[in-house]
């Protein structure tokens, strides 16, 4: 028996090409037009790109890399936080947490620096909602808020009636990003040390406000992005209170394009699927959460799992 099969989705092996990406990504060049601190250890990065033949959808990501060096070599996956198309070009924005070599170097970028950008990649949140959706609740931990910023813009296009509530948590007030959050119809903030908003975890905030949040009944959809323990705790709530939950996973990637088989995770049947194409956004029902939390493989894969 495999030690950690937790994705229930596909029956196809990751190396089976019958699974195609939703939209074909483009490779282009992005010029840094804005870079600014957006909280402790987090910065906002905005790039000017030429016109693209398609627009990204919330939850999709870009692979961003350096053209002026081969160290770091690989492009980094970043969720698309904002996107605006003009008549001559477009702008794409990212919210980036400084972690290792690549994000550190990115944080030091100057205006005018040209970066390699390949986008949009992966599955989006939007495929999980239709025009009749009355409420969408986004739950974000740390830079997991990035895709929710774009979601806030796009949600009314898909579902004009929907109200969009954002629950946003960080460890401290200093780590919170305040930019671009005005798009939500309601914003709820939690900090673990209580320095702003609700004192505690964002999942505890959810639990505290649950009756209010889910007042529109079971038709409320919950989208989540953040550290694995947060997603795990939220799934427990989803099972208990029976609401629909869709989560976005972060995992190490090689190419982000489905070419290398470097990003695989196991599905329910113990087969490997490519997170860059089957994910990063997945229905929580397709995930075997109990196995996930026991998974040593996953811990090795960069997830620091401590049950909430």
């Amino acid at each position, binding site marked *: 028996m495999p030690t950690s099969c937790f994705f229930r989705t596909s029956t196809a092996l990751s190396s089976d090409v019958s699974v195609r990406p939703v939209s074909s990504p483009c490779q282009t060049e992005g010029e840094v037009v804005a870079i600014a601190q957006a909280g402790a250890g987090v910065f906002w990065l905005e790039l000017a790109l030429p016109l693209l033949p398609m627009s990204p959808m919330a939850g999709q990501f870009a692979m961003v890399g350096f053209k002026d060096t081969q160290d770091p070599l690989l492009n980094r996956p970043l969720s698309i936080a904002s996107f605006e198309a003009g008549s001559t070009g477009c702008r794409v924005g990212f919210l980036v947490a400084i972690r290792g070599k690549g994000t550190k170097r990115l944080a030091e970028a100057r205006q005018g620096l040209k970066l390699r950008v390949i986008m949009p990649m992966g599955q989006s949140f939007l495929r999980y909602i239709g025009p009749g959706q009355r409420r969408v609740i986004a739950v974000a931990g740390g830079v997991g808020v990035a895709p929710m910023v774009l979601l806030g813009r796009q949600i009314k296009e898909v579902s004009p009636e929907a109200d969009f509530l954002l629950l946003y948590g960080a460890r401290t007030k200093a780590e919170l990003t305040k930019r671009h959050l005005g798009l939500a119809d309601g914003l709820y903030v939690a900090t673990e040390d209580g320095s702003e908003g609700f004192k505690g975890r964002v999942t505890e905030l959810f639990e505290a406000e649950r009756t209010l949040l889910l007042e529109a009944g079971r038709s409320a959809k919950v989208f989540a992005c953040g550290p694995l323990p947060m997603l795990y705790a939220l799934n427990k709530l989803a099972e208990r209170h029976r609401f629909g939950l869709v989560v976005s996973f972060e995992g190490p990637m090689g190419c982000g*394009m489905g070419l290398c088989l470097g990003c695989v995770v196991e599905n329910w049947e113990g087969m490997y699927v490519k997170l860059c194409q089957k994910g990063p956004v997945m229905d929580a029902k397709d995930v075997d959460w109990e196995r996930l939390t026991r998974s040593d493989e996953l811990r090795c894969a960069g997830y620091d799992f401590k049950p909430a």
Partner: protein
Amino acid sequence: MTSNRLEVPFLGKTIKNPIAAASGCYGYGLEQPELLPPEAFGVITLKGLSASPKRGNPPPRIAETPCGMLNSIGLENVGIEAFAKNTWPHLRGLGVPIIANFFGDDETEFQKAAQMLSDLEGLFAMELNLSCPNKPQWGSILASDPKVASRLVRSIKPLCRYPLIVKLSPNVASISEVAKACEDSGADALSLINTLLGMAIDVDAKSSKLGTRFGGLSGPSIYPIALRMVSEVSRSVRLPIVGMGGVSSPEDAIGMMLAGASLVGVGTLLLVNPFGVEEIKQGMLAYLDRHGLEKLTGLQGRL
């Protein structure tokens, strides 16, 4: 652009440009038809295939290193039967010569794979992977012992309906001895190099950064080693060579040809910069102009 200035001969065929997609870095050729169209390549080498499906290694499978990366994919693949049924029909019609890379866990599996691939209609060539470092149980023996390599090539060659390319490992004492053994045993061409066995440690976790202990190093950091090995092998055999390992610029590709390669494989480059293929081709044309050459044929050297 329909210029034929980049055409090169290889295994009795005119190849429209010398750039080969290296095995394992372009999937089965259909994953990114728009971002990196198959037609960009002179030839395409598919991800390694085996007679039965292979699960591959546990994640994490990739660890970045200075100017390179380690992988421990572990030859995950759907197996030749599923490939033949689901993928090959879509690949065949593309008009780009396709090389099927294959391996087995033992000699019988190698033979079975060779037979199954020979049943496909329309392949260009078959590439025998002598050297995957992710399969230590046989990789080190097969790859480094000229006698074992020779025996394997002799037993596989008669089963191959298509030209047989043998892909050499750099993890050996003398790559030219293995190359000679393959030539004497009936190989039609050689490709080199596969990845160099390496390791990366997460010092905080006190464990390997990969799901396995070791992985295969690829990317720009291995280019000088690859170049030296292509040069060495090209002086010791007459077989045509697909030179690869860290190629990421037109200069790298031209260097490979000057060292003795007929075709130039690109692997890691595709994972990072899909535009790189076009950049290399344009750079080669500029090089021809700069040196007053009409065509790429004739550039190949034995430096």
